[in-house]
């Protein structure tokens, strides 16, 4: 794994553009969504994406879309400076966005235009020349067969073709979305395996933690909220195993009591996340909705500290930027619905204290 100083320089500059805790405290003090947009327009990280917009005309939903799109744009830009495994990692993250686009398009086409086409089109991630799929065009189709033939020549064709008989009996969105996720994560896992040993170690630590925590949350919800049988649950986990390898993941799905499940987790390397749990819906929600993400946030922070590994910085930065946008959307929701700032604090991924704000 060769250190790419050019990329390190670019990412260092981008890390400098990330919002600070003070920024988030200021944003929570805003009274209107336009105030948030205006504030962001004056920050170096978001100025390029908002400069061409008339803030007064900007709708909350549009602002969220611009923020989400900024994640894609930055990756496309960084791709020009990346090499070898860095490019592959960026490609995998972009592939995730492409898969999300495909899910959106499939849903739109198969549910026969559940909302205006223009609205759905705006929600597509713009992947420029990186993606070979013209999602705007796909949205204009009306049947699964048309969608299938338009995907010919892409890596989704065979997947959709194999699922086609299921669609003869009517749209089965859950099945196709689940298959797409499964396909994405298994492709990611196989891709990482082809990395050089040091890059593989880094990438597994990063994506593996993501896979583990995703699976843990999934098992928790399916087993203890929807009360699905263990045999059902294991099949639905994503094939990105790190500490919770297939055997351990099966052990987790086989637990029958929440105490047994949480006990297993508190004995795992992720014990910090699950420590001090109580059998209350509020605390369990807080653990699975926020603490798991906060743990990944902290991991990403550690990744960017390694100033000598461009891959490590790239992985860490991409996650930090994503978490920042998610937190910004929390702020937007909070301001839009005039909620107490403390509620936003509860859902923040980053550790932000808003006590000082309570008076404002």
């Amino acid at each position, binding site marked *: 794994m060769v250190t790419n*100083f050019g990329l390190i320089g670019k990412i260092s*500059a981008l890390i400098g553009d990330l919002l600070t805790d003070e920024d988030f405290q200021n944003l929570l003090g805003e009274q209107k969504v336009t105030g948030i947009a205006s504030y962001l327009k004056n920050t170096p990280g978001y100025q390029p994406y908002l400069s061409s917009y008339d803030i007064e005309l900007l709708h909350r939903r549009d602002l969220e879309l611009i923020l989400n799109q900024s994640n894609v744009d930055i990756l496309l830009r960084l791709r020009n400076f990346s090499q070898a495994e860095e490019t592959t990692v960026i490609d995998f993250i972009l592939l995730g966005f492409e898969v999300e686009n495909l899910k959106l398009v499939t849903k739109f086409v198969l549910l026969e235009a559940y909302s205006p086409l223009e609205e759905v089109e705006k929600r597509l991630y713009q992947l420029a020349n990186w993606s070979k799929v013209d999602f705007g065009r796909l949205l204009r189709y009306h049947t699964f067969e048309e969608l299938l033939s338009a995907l010919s020549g892409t890596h989704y064709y065979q997947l959709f073709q194999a699922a086609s*008989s*299921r669609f003869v009996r009517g749209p089965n969105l859950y099945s196709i979305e689940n298959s797409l996720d499964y396909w994405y994560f298994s492709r990611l896992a196989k891709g990482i395996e082809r990395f050089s040993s040091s890059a593989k170690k880094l990438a597994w630590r990063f994506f593996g933690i993501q896979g583990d925590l995703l699976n843990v949350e999934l098992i928790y919800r399916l087993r203890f909220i929807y009360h699905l049988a263990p045999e059902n649950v294991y099949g639905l986990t994503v094939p990105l195993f790190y500490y919770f390898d297939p055997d351990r993941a099966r052990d987790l799905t086989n637990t029958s009591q929440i105490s047994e499940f949480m006990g297993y987790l508190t004995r795992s390397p992720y014990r910090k996340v699950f420590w001090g749990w109580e059998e209350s819906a509020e605390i369990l929600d807080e653990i699975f909705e926020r603490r798991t993400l906060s743990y990944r946030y902290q991991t990403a922070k550690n990744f960017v500290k390694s100033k000598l590994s461009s891959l490590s910085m790239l992985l860490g930065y991409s996650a930090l930027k994503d978490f920042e946008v998610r937190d910004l959307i929390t702020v937007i929701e909070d301001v839009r619905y005039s909620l107490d700032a403390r509620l936003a604090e509860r859902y923040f991924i980053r550790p932000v204290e808003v006590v000082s704000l309570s008076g404002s």
Partner: protein
Amino acid sequence: MAVERMNGVTICGNRKYQAEILSQVISFGNFEPVSWEKVIPKEIRTSLNQETTSRSSSWEEFYRLLVKLHELSGRKPHPRPVLSKTIGQDLEKFWELAQIWEKEMSQKLEEIAQLKQELRRLGYTRRHLRTLRSLEIEIKDLTELQGFVVKFGRILAMYFDRLIEGINDLPVLVIEVDREGESCWVLVIALPRMEEETNRILNSIHFEQYTLPEVILPGPIEEVYFRVSDQIKRTQLEIEKKTIELKEIFYQNRTYIYDLLDHSYVLCHVNQLLGTGGMSDNFFALAGWVPADKVEKLEKIITEHPQALLIIEEDREFEKTGEEAPTLLTNFSFFQRFEVLVKMYGFPNYREIDPTPVVALSFLFLFGFMFGDVGHGLVLSLAGFLYYLVAKSDFGYILGWAGISSSLFGLLYGSFFGFEYIISPWWRRPMENISYFLGVSVFLGVGMVSLAMILGMINSLQRKDWRSLILGGGGLAGFGFYWLAVWMVVSYFLRGELPAPAFLWVGVLLILLVLVFLKDVLETKTNRGEAAIQSFFLLFDEILRFLSNTVSFIRLSAFAVNHAGIFLAFLAISETINGGAFAGFSRFLVLFLGNLLILGLEGLVVFIQTLRLEYYELFSRFFSGQGRVFQPFRFRH
């Protein structure tokens, strides 16, 4: 030979004539609509609303139906952008008429669809039977298997491992019967008491169970197989019959269908275009981009309609609304073929120089420099142009010219198929003047990096980005630093000392560095301390880039020498072959294969190295590649 200048235009008109006006605008083919909400003044906008979606989608639906009628009748639809006068006058009648055809044809279509579904099901049955035949199991044995639950069906192949992991601890047998693309056919045999668990596992991986229809089960497997084949044939014939009935409806009404196709084709596009604009009960308004040299033509179209109005604005004025101008490249035919090299990296921004001519010339120069050989160049050129003629590929064209450049450099180096004594060099032989060529490469590097910086400065000028122009690492400060540093290094190597007074020049260098350092700091409005730290590291990166970008060009001479070196190796091998009846032929064979290897492998490596120099050392200095392609609204199927 540049990025085409754009004008912003607003088209307003009476809705009564919208189809006539806008069909001509679409045929004009050089209007790219933009979102009207940003561009059209607020006071006009409030009196307009958007209500095109339902009408647009009904026309689209109608158009698709007509296309389908064509397809079912075995004809390819060729819609023309022509509004039908007959239909225009009596639209309601034709809608009704078309709805009757639609009803009749939909019924036929529905029947065909059902038959096709049946055909698909039968196809699976036949496949099922075929796969079971390979297992040498009788259907009766399988269905009457006592004490076991047997399931046959398919899953996505990627789930196969998950299935095996899932049943790992259960007394369940899974046999992979067949693979077909991403699908995997499996036979699952379980104990009845395990049926529930097995079903759950199979459901979680979206197992698609296949059950044989009872009616076809009786009899030996071969017999069942032929019965299903006959059923397939009958269903196919039934589909053909229904399709002919469908075609009859088409041919009875063909003239009208053609007219309707053309008409709905135009209206689909007109409504789509109107979807980007605004409308009131009486007026419509659209805004968009038009290449400046095409505006006059559009003006002529609009003035033909007294009910329409065209407002033309300069690009900068139009961009104030927040609409970034798109990019349209207009290069000479020769350079146009090289656009592919630029597009592989990105598309030029509207306020950016189109690098295609620079890329075309520098690519040919750098390729020729590294792969200078008269013979190899001619072969490459021939192969490239042939490929271009056959496949119409731009890469063939580029390779053809790269071969010519290679031949010209071959004359300068005196190299012909690797032999260095057949022709005398017009300049020098790289192999005999390695130090000289190394020096030349570095100076070429200085020249290319400087050229990239100048282009970058022109881009800053076009964007009116004064700070980057003056203080940027790629701006005047960076340029001054780079040339001063080059001059001092050259002086040191030539005279063994820095130019006097050294402290003065070193001082100037430091001042220029401070200017570059200040650029990012001044750009940051908040937290300048942090910005200063970042800027310091970026400055370090900038200096390293100056050095690495320049030194990177050493590869020019390295490959020029390498070219001769590889051939020498093959020549040496061929000279070791002495004696024997076929010595001459063997020597020729070694040299022939050597030349092939040089042409194929080295040619490819040099091609990649040239692209690398273009992208990493040059483009990164001046080209963002973040442009948006000009996409005019045109008639398309």
